[in-house]
């Protein structure tokens, strides 16, 4: 069965006077990666929390396969829908295997005993994310890239169909960024649905099937394929910066880069060599 998570004209406000967003439609479908992009403070993480059921929308509704999310019990919701927050700060030490097994919570009995099946699922998720070698390591001693893969294994162990990830590549180097997105793409081919908040527009352009661009002043975000959303004028308006979009010479995906603001650097001030391809 394929699942769809849908947000229909949802609004959310921490302070009633200043809504974070007020008219957002979004859909996360099985087999697809939806990228949520936009400047700081545009409500990307808030939207992800609303779609995960952690925050109730002020108006509009979020539905899972047509049924309002609020009609699910917390545990039923967690069996279909997994959420990975931006920061995880464990208060106590746990081994990698224990962290992955934490993901089995929505399937456990009352006292949290792990069945043989739970262990099998945890081991399978560790193979998927290629962290078997870390099994007995202390989670707190891992590098940023290793941690992120362990956390991904841990929410995969929930056996969800739809995963909502908040900036999973924020702390990763360029190698681990591409590895993680390639892994998400493989998992999407296996039938998982993803919504990923990211600041990296080039990765979003390359790996996401559809994008949602939130801005600080438009009521409705811009949505569509990466080619439709990632245009120079749209991004320049959204980020209030001079942003240019070219074609990636190899992948042909949109290639996004920002010009140096006027008065702040060599290309605008004219006392350095003009950047290749830049407007002078």
């Amino acid at each position: 069965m394929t699942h769809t998570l849908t947000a229909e004209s949802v609004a959310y406000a921490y302070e009633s006077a200043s809504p974070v967003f007020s008219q957002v439609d979004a859909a996360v479908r099985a087999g697809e990666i939806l990228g949520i992009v936009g400047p700081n403070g545009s409500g990307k993480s808030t939207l992800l929390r609303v779609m995960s059921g952690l925050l109730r929308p002020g108006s509009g509704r979020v539905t899972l396969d047509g049924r309002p999310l609020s009609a699910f019990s917390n545990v039923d919701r967690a069996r279909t829908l997994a959420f990975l927050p931006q920061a995880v700060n464990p208060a106590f030490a746990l081994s990698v295997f224990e962290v992955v097994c934490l993901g089995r919570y929505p399937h456990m009995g009352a006292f949290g005993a792990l069945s043989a099946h739970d262990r099998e699922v945890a081991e399978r998720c560790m193979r998927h994310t290629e962290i078997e070698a870390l099994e007995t390591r202390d989670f707190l001693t891992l590098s940023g890239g290793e941690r992120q893969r362990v956390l991904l294994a841990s929410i995969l162990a929930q056996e969800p169909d739809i995963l909502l990830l908040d900036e999973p590549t924020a702390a990763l180097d360029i190698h681990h960024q591409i590895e993680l997105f390639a892994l998400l793409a493989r998992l999407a081919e296996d039938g998982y649905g993803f919504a990923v908040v990211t600041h990296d527009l080039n990765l979003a352009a390359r790996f996401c099937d559809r994008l949602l661009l939130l801005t600080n002043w438009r009521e409705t975000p811009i949505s569509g394929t990466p080619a439709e959303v990632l245009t120079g004028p749209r991004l320049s308006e959204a980020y209030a910066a001079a942003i240019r979009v070219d074609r990636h010479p190899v992948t042909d995906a949109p290639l996004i880069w920002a010009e140096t603001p006027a008065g702040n650097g060599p290309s605008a001030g004219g006392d350095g060599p003009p950047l290749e391809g830049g407007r002078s």
Partner: protein
Amino acid sequence: MTRRGRRFFVALVVAGSIAMVLLSLLTGAEPLSVARAWREWRSGIPMTEAPTLSILVQQRMPRTLAALLVGSGLALVGCAFQAMLRNPLATPYTLGVASAGAFGAWTATVLMAGYGLTRSILGVSSVQVFAFVFAEADVLIVYFLAARKGKVSPTVLLLGGVTMGMLSNSGILLMRYLSDPERLKMMDHWLMGGVDVLGYGPVLTLLIGVAPCMAILLAQMAKFDQLGFGVEIAAGRGINVRLLQTSTFFVGSLMTAVIVSVAGPIGFVGLIVPHAVRSVTGSRHRILMPVSVIAGGGFLCFCDIVARKLLPGETPIGIVTTLLGGPFFLYLLLRRRFTDWGA
């Protein structure tokens, strides 16, 4: 730690605690002959004419039961509060419950001396009633400070609890200033805690106040793992974080208030037992909490034995728990890597 090693440790804790219980029954001002008690039991004579049996049943058993309930209760609340506050320094007294209870006990003493407060209220000693009421008042004040807009802030719980503790302590100083020297000694003894209870009344109070709360906390074991790992990730896995925090706070505080009102503010058990157990079993609460319950009960029985034997007469048990527990805790700090506690 391997599974086998962990099983061995659990077996050791269980065996050690049972040994402490038996030793506690046999230890006291008078040596106790099991054979004679057994003969008295078999002969069927009334308790009043069976001196050995009556010491065992009327004195040693209630005292040992009280030590078990107090020790296991404090250790469990320690585990639960460390998980709820996501802070390895948390103890059952972090939120000011013990200081408020002590302040209540002092207030009752001063009121009994000069203002006509009766010795007991509805069959329970006034000191206990005041200690309990003050402790619960502290709990409510701290909660309303920390609960805002559908969220409970662990930071405000901590800050509010520490502040309320300091206020209570200055209240205690005021009461001390108002008391006569004879009472000072008596109350100082109370402040150091003790399980030297008389009869089964206090044991029953403890049982009613502690056992259901322990059951509630133990039923949340799997949730504490999630909360300790991360608040938002726990919420994403289907845990009602606010309900878990609120219920843990109230249930744990209620239990602590009952314990403090009966046994006084016995220090350190609620900090050291969870940490000592955690250093061997790891931080999965499914193992940590039940083992801490058993270890806590055994540890306090042991401390009570030492309290009865260390000096002529009785040493207050609070001194023993800290004297024994403090150096051991320093040893743990020395030996452990900092990452073991998430910092």
